[in-house]
């Protein structure tokens, strides 16, 4: 990849910028530019030619186009709080300062979403949502100042990722300008999408895919009750062991955080959080949910922590005490500034069960280098934040600190983890990305980046460094396949690669329950059905890695044996495989509570259209190192690659479920009640509205401890006006909706939002089509209409749909266009369009 040399000097750049935007907002004096030289990681500094204080989306677009035309690189900057140097300016480039783009454009409480500009502060979203009983879940420690645009660029995490996932789980869609200047919208307002999860791929791209102009964020109902528990330990290992026990108990706390002695000390001086004195480590566990459930879990948690050797256990008695606990934790990074003039924050991830080992290694390294290391970490995610303390004024100190940091990153990779869980690669870890991804996997990232940004103007050198290009050739025998692959499997994989290289067109099938591709097209059929079985499953890690050809039922059974499950409850039929449900992007009714398939997929190994093996993501629950290839596989309908291996995050299965069926007379009441239930006293596991005889039935499902279910269901019933009945043994009921076998007619899945229901139902009630408004009003499932009638219906309401019918090829119909971003990725992954697919790609001519 070559980048155009700018060829413009500072005077020219400033003069041209002043033509494009209000000259007062083009900062070019040395003093005005200087404060933009660094972000939250001051080890890196660079001088931009100019800083433009952006006020409108149109200005962003104009400037990006200008950069593309002139080759002057740009950095889009929010509040400049990146801890990986991700918002360090590009030397001789320009900075687009977006912090004034801080308007909340729309709040749609009924649809549980809002639209914001990229410069909106994370916490301001929750503040604006609060009067509606809603909040924005991702909570990075810098949430009082970091911007949504920055969160999206780096797929920021925070303390509550364990239960709620990262930023990407909460970004439904966005409008952005590509590095070449096109404007496009990707994603949907609905929780469910159509086609590959392109927004999921965009999130975490560190500014390389363009600049977001407007973002659609998912909002959640405010948590009714928190219980924040602080436990003090005499050793970090004991605190780590307690985390393992909490996980094993089947509880799913909102957050589990550990701080060691040094970081406690810093936080204590800083915010006087009043942490227990003399602790070697403290563990913060936050339970959340409705009060009955939380109280029950609190009893269990306290017993467990007592048994784990905690010498002091405290629970926050009120919101002020809770805030104080969190303030200490969230100030820890900056507070460490009191212990040392400089530090590097690391962000590696290790499998949770190896936390103790990882901490020991860090301690050994600290001793060997004679450099102090403080530890704060998201223990529930295995996401470490070693703070390496040094004094930059000492000769060679930074270098030694970086060396130590490098060793920690290598350790994370050796343990099967990631170099970054939530801070991103930025400038800081650019040299380490090739440790985690090599050969074709890394080349894929460079190729995608080049396809989107041929002039290399968008946040150049972040994530992917120019100086590590071209890549060192990978040794021929290192295919990067994991040791658990058998010899026969390796040979078969080689075969598949050769087939794909030689074939003109290919279609991939798994269990053959939902064939992909358009049947009219002649294509060679490649089956992954023989790649079946579990490759790695460690319940303590909440992860499972399987062959793509593994029947979903087999996975579900294996998980159930360990008291775990796939929380998005994929709809299946006999023989459905993991690869098949990923390809179709099928989430079931469980999606409402914790997220859909896109939120649980972690890693994928596939063979792309060039016949090369390609790996993306990882096997740990948090990883923002590369581009998020696994997300693109969700809903790709076989169009991008042949999927071989998949890694999923899994959750402890609730010990019991119960359902409330509420009968309502008319549509208006039904919609009203449905909304009331979503923001009601209990966190719903599933919620759907089904037309019934004389009105509508609302199905509300709760999960949790069996003793508490009847009371909690009664509590929910209280906020409803209709006649309710309770079904405690409800497995069959929901299972029925998740079955797709023996479909004689098409079953259509239409992503919608809550506000659509009334107008859609007004139309549909006169038809004979069977329907269900599932996932809390995010998915309309329709049985009946033939493709022509369906298309007509969809166009009328400006919607798109996925149609499934038995083993026939799925159909994408209605309103759907393949985004530019996806088309460009397709050109990288499958340049000769070998994978036959029902997605309407319009490929640019390849010369």
């Amino acid at each position, binding site marked *: 990849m070559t980048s155009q040399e700018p060829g413009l000097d500072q005077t020219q750049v400033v003069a041209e910028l002043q033509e494009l935007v209000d000259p007062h907002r083009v*900062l070019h*004096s*040395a*003093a*005005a530019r*200087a*404060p*933009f*030289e*660094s*972000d*939250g990681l*001051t080890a890196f500094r660079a001088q931009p030619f100019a*800083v433009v*204080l952006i006020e409108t989306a149109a200005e962003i677009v104009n400037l990006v186009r200008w950069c593309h035309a002139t080759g002057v690189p740009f950095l889009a900057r929010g*509040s*400049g*709080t990146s801890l990986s140097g991700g918002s360090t300016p590009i030397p001789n480039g320009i900075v687009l*300062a977006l*912090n*004034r783009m*801080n308007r909340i454009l729309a709040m749609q409480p009924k649809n549980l979403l809002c639209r914001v500009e990229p410069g909106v*502060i994370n*916490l301001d979203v929750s503040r604006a949502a609060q009067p509606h009983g809603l909040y924005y879940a991702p909570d990075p420690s*810098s949430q*009082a*100042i*970091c911007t949504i645009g920055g969160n999206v660029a780096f797929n920021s995490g925070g303390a509550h990722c364990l239960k709620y996932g990262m930023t990407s789980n909460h970004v439904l869609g966005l409008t952005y300008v590509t590095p070449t200047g096109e404007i496009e919208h990707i994603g949907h307002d609905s929780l469910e999408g159509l086609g590959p999860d392109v927004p999921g791929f965009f999130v975490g791209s560190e500014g390389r895919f363009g600049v977001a102009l407007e973002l659609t964020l998912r909002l959640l109902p405010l948590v009714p009750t928190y219980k924040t528990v602080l436990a003090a330990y005499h050793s970090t290992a004991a605190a780590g062991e307690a985390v393992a026990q909490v996980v094993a108990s089947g509880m799913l706390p909102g957050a589990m955080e550990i701080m060691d002695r040094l970081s406690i000390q810093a*936080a204590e*001086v*800083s*915010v006087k959080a009043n942490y227990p004195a003399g602790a070697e480590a403290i563990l913060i566990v936050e339970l959340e949910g409705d009060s009955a459930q939380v109280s029950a879990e609190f009893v269990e948690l306290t017993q467990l922590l007592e048994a784990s050797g905690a010498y002091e256990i405290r629970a926050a008695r009120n919101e002020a005490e809770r805030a104080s606990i969190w303030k200490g934790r969230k*100030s*820890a*990074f*900056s*507070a*460490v*500034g*009191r212990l040392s*003039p*400089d*530090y590097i924050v690391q962000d590696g991830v290790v499998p949770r069960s190896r936390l103790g080992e990882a901490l020991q290694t860090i301690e050994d390294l600290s001793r060997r280098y004679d450099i102090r290391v403080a530890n704060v970490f998201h223990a529930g995610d295995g996401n470490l934040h070693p703070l390496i303390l040094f004094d*930059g*004024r000492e000769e060679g100190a930074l270098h030694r600190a970086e060396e130590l940091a490098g060793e920690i990153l290598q350790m994370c990779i050796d343990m099967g983890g990631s170099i970054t869980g939530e801070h991103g690669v930025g400038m800081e870890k650019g040299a380490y990305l090739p440790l985690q991804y090599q050969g074709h996997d890394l080349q894929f990232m460079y190729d995608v980046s080049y396809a989107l940004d041929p002039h290399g103007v968008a946040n150049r050198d972040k994530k992917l460094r120019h100086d590590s290009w071209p890549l060192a050739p990978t040794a021929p025998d290192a295919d990067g396949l994991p040791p658990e692959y058998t010899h026969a499997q390796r040979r078969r994989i080689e075969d598949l690669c050769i087939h794909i290289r030689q074939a003109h067109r290919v279609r991939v099938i798994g269990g053959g329950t939902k064939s992909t591709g358009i049947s009219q097209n002649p294509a060679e059929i490649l089956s992954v059905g023989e790649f079946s079985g579990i490759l790695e499953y460690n319940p303590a890690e909440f992860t499972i890695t399987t062959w793509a050809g593994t029947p979903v039922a087999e996975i579900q059974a294996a998980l159930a044996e360990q008291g775990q499950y796939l929380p998005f409850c994929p709809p299946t039929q006999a023989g459905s495989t993991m690869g098949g449900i990923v390809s179709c992007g099928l989430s079931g009714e469980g999606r409402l509570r914790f997220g859909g398939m896109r939120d649980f997929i972690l890693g994928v190994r596939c063979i792309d259209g060039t016949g090369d093996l390609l790996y993306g993501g990882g096997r740990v629950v948090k990883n923002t190192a590369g581009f998020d290839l696994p997300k693109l596989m969700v809903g790709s309908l076989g169009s991008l690659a042949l999927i071989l291996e998949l890694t999923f995050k899994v959750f402890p299965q609730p010990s019991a479920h119960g359902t409330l069926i509420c009968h309502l007379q008319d549509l208006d009441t039904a919609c009203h009640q449905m909304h009331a239930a979503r923001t009601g006293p209990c966190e719903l596991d599933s919620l759907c509205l089904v037309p019934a005889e004389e009105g509508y039935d609302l199905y509300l499902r709760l999960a949790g401890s069996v003793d508490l279910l009847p009371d909690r269901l009664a509590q929910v019933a209280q906020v409803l006006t209709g006649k309710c009945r309770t079904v405690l043994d409800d497995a069959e009921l929901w299972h029925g909706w998740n079955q797709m076998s023996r479909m004689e007619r098409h079953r259509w899945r239409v992503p919608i939002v809550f506000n659509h229901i009334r107008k859609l139902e007004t139309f549909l009630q006169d038809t004979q089509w069977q329907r269900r408004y599932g996932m809390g009003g995010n998915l309309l499932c329709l049985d009946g209409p033939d493709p022509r009638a369906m298309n007509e219906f969809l166009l009328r309401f400006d919607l798109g749909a996925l149609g499934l019918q038995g083993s026939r090829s799925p159909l994408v119909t209605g309103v759907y266009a393949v985004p530019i971003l996806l088309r460009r990725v397709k050109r990288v992954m499958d340049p000769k369009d070998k994978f036959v697919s029902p997605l309407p790609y319009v490929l640019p001519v390849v010369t």
Partner: protein
Amino acid sequence: MKHTIDLAQGPPALPEMAEAISNCVHCGFCLPVCPTYQVQGEEMDSPRGRIFLMKESLEGSLPVAETMPYVDNCLGCMACVTACPSGVEYGQLLSPFRALGEETNSCRNLGQSIRRAIALRTLPFPRRLRTALTVGRATRFLHGLAPPALKPLLRLIPDRMPQAWSLPQSQSVSPPKVAVLAGCVQSVLAPEVNQATARVLHAYGVDFTFLDAQVCCGALHMHAGEAPQARVQAQGLFDAVSAETEVILSNAAGCGSGMREYALLFKQTKLAERADQVAGQTQDISVFLSQQTAPRGLKLDPPLRVGYHDACHLQHAQGITAEPRALLQQIEGLELVELTEAVFCCGSAGIYNIEHPDTADQLGRRKAEEAMAQDIDLLVTGNIGCMFQIRTHLRRLHSDIPVQHTMQVLDTALDQSRNP
């Protein structure tokens, strides 16, 4: 943050300045609480941006004159100090740096320079101020003809000139241990605050005396970077404080916080020890009173919804938030209401509203709107500057919410307890 400042040469406060820079980790936690960053949305006008700029200047890579406009633009509200997890003593960097700027001829525009010069040469001198205001009021019909640069200053002239009040002296035989600073601006513009203070102290049974009415603590100069003049003023105060004095009470947040910074102002001078001593004796009146036994039966009838505005020089510079609230809450019939943006400055900030009227106006308006949104009967604060700034902006928005000093409310409550 790493720096390469040569500690061997520079002002006496350089080690403290370098320490503040070194402690800053550039995390940005100060941005959401910084009023100028909120209003202007520019990194240069944020605490972390200014620290970066001051560092560059102290290292010698940026001329002081180029960084001064941004440093000048700071209100000095110290909200960043409260928010800072890394413990950066921003004030220890700001005031000495401003002094440095004054020495090296900073680059204010003409209007700012004139207003600043007039303000610093009249405000802290009660006689001059009284004369200036009298002349200003008498020539009001000519104000329309004044150059635009002077308008922000003229707007501050009150409609009604308060009656001068001669400060009472202690009647007791032995010299009182408690001295009260009347405040230069306050004695002219709001003598009622001192009157109320005197009555409240009497009611609390405190034997006290006022310091000479002409005494100015020098805080206004100090915070504006005019260190030499600040020292001259402060020396006057040192002389006025008798040897028997144990506690010096301030009922103006700006004065109290300035006096508590004397140590740095007089560092490496002959008066360093005396400065230390006076700084240690200084206390805000709310802190002092909260440690005394309150008279019984304090009440307001009819009951009032009262909003409390935290003066920056109390809450941020001195960390005083609980004491004034405790004083107010002991009054029966007073419902204390918290403002939603309590952390933000009202824009008064010493002579800031004279030097930077635009930013100050935006902040003043924001604070007035905040008070109006709370539907309160009375707004209370502990600083003369805030009182005038918020009152001005409330009136501009046609609100008649009164603005009073904490002592005035206590005084009213005392009065009502005595005359039910």
